[in-house]
């Protein structure tokens, strides 16, 4: 009996060790083994760096030109916001040195222009725009400013503070979501590993969602999902954008902004902020 018991223990130990090894191997395949987290630049599942141009196929008459006062279609404004927008005076903004009000993070990616993305360091993705000559810093490994201690917050700015994280594919997939066996003789498509950046931005200076004075407040929280993909040699980027501002918006403003990658920066043309154009 004692021999059987020892043999059972030994067998159980071997099985446990093998299971642990198998689990570790699976984790290692995913790059999630018990190791210190990799820098965001190294862990990046997709490459967003390069030169991008915004494709203005949506909301053209509010983006490509400055709409007149009173044109607020498509934005769920509160009465307080409406009152403020009706008092819009670009000359007053210029006099106050506030020409960049429509280039803050909640509006910036909708401004027609080119975007240059590069790694500033291993944990910071730098996003520059030629329109308004703005720079956003998407910092990985940090908490959203709202969740950070007050001591770590910086002064409010047009681009605020942005906390970024990679969002990866789920670990386990139920069988009913796995594609059926392929038709014989048909090659499987090249499967990308995907990956999206989630960015949460706050600590913003109040500005405009639309150049004609539609406001957002300093309490605005901007959440974005940056996703890139390739199609027939072209690379695209879609930025899903949620703007939450209980003061000036009746509901979350949702837009998804498309960009296309360009071969180089030859069309990069920095222009200063303008409150009129």
């Amino acid at each position, binding site marked *: 009996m004692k021999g059987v018991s020892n*043999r059972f223990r030994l067998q159980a130990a*071997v*099985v446990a060790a*093998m299971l642990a090894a*198998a689990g570790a*191997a699976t984790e290692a*395949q995913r790059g999630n083994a018990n190791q210190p987290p990799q820098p965001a630049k190294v862990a990046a599942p997709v490459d967003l760096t390069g030169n991008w*141009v915004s*494709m*203005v196929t*949506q909301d*053209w*008459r509010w983006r*490509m*030109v400055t709409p*007149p*006062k*009173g*044109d*607020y*279609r*498509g*934005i769920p*404004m509160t009465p307080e916001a*409406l009152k403020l927008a009706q008092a819009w005076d670009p000359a007053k903004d210029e006099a106050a040195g506030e020409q960049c009000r429509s280039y803050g993070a909640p509006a910036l990616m909708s401004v*027609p222009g080119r975007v240059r993305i590069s790694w500033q360091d291993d944990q910071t993705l730098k996003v520059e725009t030629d329109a308004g000559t703005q720079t956003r810093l998407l910092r990985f490994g940090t908490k959203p400013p709202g969740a950070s201690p007050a001591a770590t917050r910086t002064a409010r700015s047009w681009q605020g503070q942005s906390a970024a994280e990679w*969002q990866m594919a789920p*670990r386990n*997939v139920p*069988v*009913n*979501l*796995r*594609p*059926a*066996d*392929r*038709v014989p003789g*048909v090659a*499987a*498509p090249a*499967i990308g*590993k*995907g*990956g*999206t950046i989630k960015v949460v931005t706050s600590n913003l200076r109040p500005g405009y969602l639309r150049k004609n004075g539609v406001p957002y407040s300093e309490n605005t929280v901007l959440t974005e*999902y940056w*996703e890139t*993909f390739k*199609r027939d040699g072209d690379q*695209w980027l*879609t930025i*899903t954008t949620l703007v939450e501002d209980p003061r000036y918006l009746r509901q979350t*403003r*949702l*837009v*998804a902004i*498309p960009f296309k990658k360009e071969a180089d920066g030859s069309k990069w*043309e920095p222009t200063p902020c303008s409150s009129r*154009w």
Partner: protein
Amino acid sequence: MTSRMLVRTLAAVLSFTALTAVPASAQIDLSGYWTRESDVDNGYSREVVDLLGIPVSADGRAKALSYDIASLSATERQCQMYPPFYLFTGPFPLKIWSEQDPITQKLVAWEIDGWGDRGGTKIYMDGRPHPSPYGQHTHEGFTTGSWDGNTLTAVTTHFKMGDIKRHTSFNSDRATITYRFTRYGDLLTVTGILEDPVYLAEPYVLTEIFRQGSGASGFPLTACEPIEELPTLHENPALVPHYLPGENKWTNELTQNRGIPVEAALGGPQTMYPEYRKVLKDTYKMPDKCKVDCGTAAPAQVSNAPAGGRGAPPPPAPAGGRGAPPPTQ
């Protein structure tokens, strides 16, 4: 432990590992009801000629300018369906569900329900090939899909010519659509790239965001039934409302209403790139105030377009269904 036991144990461990391992591509569940949420003007055109930001080719522009929406009042055209790109420009929600192989339980296709005026989309996931270029073209087209990480990507071919933005521009039957369905919690972002060698000079990209809902409300699934809409068409069944080249009288409506130059209203790939603002800087005349279709707390709306029938632009008080704009925010 005997060697036989060790082999058995090892086999059991390997089987367990195989069953729990992560597949090469990851998939997520898209099934459910999804309501349209994004604040963009994908399907909205107040003015009759509005090709702003649409990369139409010369042929695409000619087609758009010859079109008279009153043609839809002809009995034989009243139930004409929209093409698959209407997923981005229509006002309706999505109902998505999956179809499993009855034996393996694996996913054969994702299905997107149709609406009263749009056919459903069945996205085959089993790798079957698209039909020959000479294959039948339907309202729905033929769609296959695969996963790219968290994103379902799909391609639709073999659909008919149709309207891609509120009766102002069209795709030919040689067009293709590439979709990206990416889920972020209870949100679903869909990116669509329409490519058309006939009516577009460059790919046309639109996006839409949906939020997961709890029911099917808002689905207009009733069948279309033709009725007599315009007496003139009844009296002259041979009449097909249209504009001859150079005779479309609405080309300057955007200029009158919004100060946007005619050249921009006529679209083309150049109008969707930021550098086109240099042209606009000298030609755009900003109105003193918003005159038409202003959204929140808009002043009384002014319409200078013809009234009545399907040929008319959307009325100031929008009604649901075909020809009507999405709800004003």
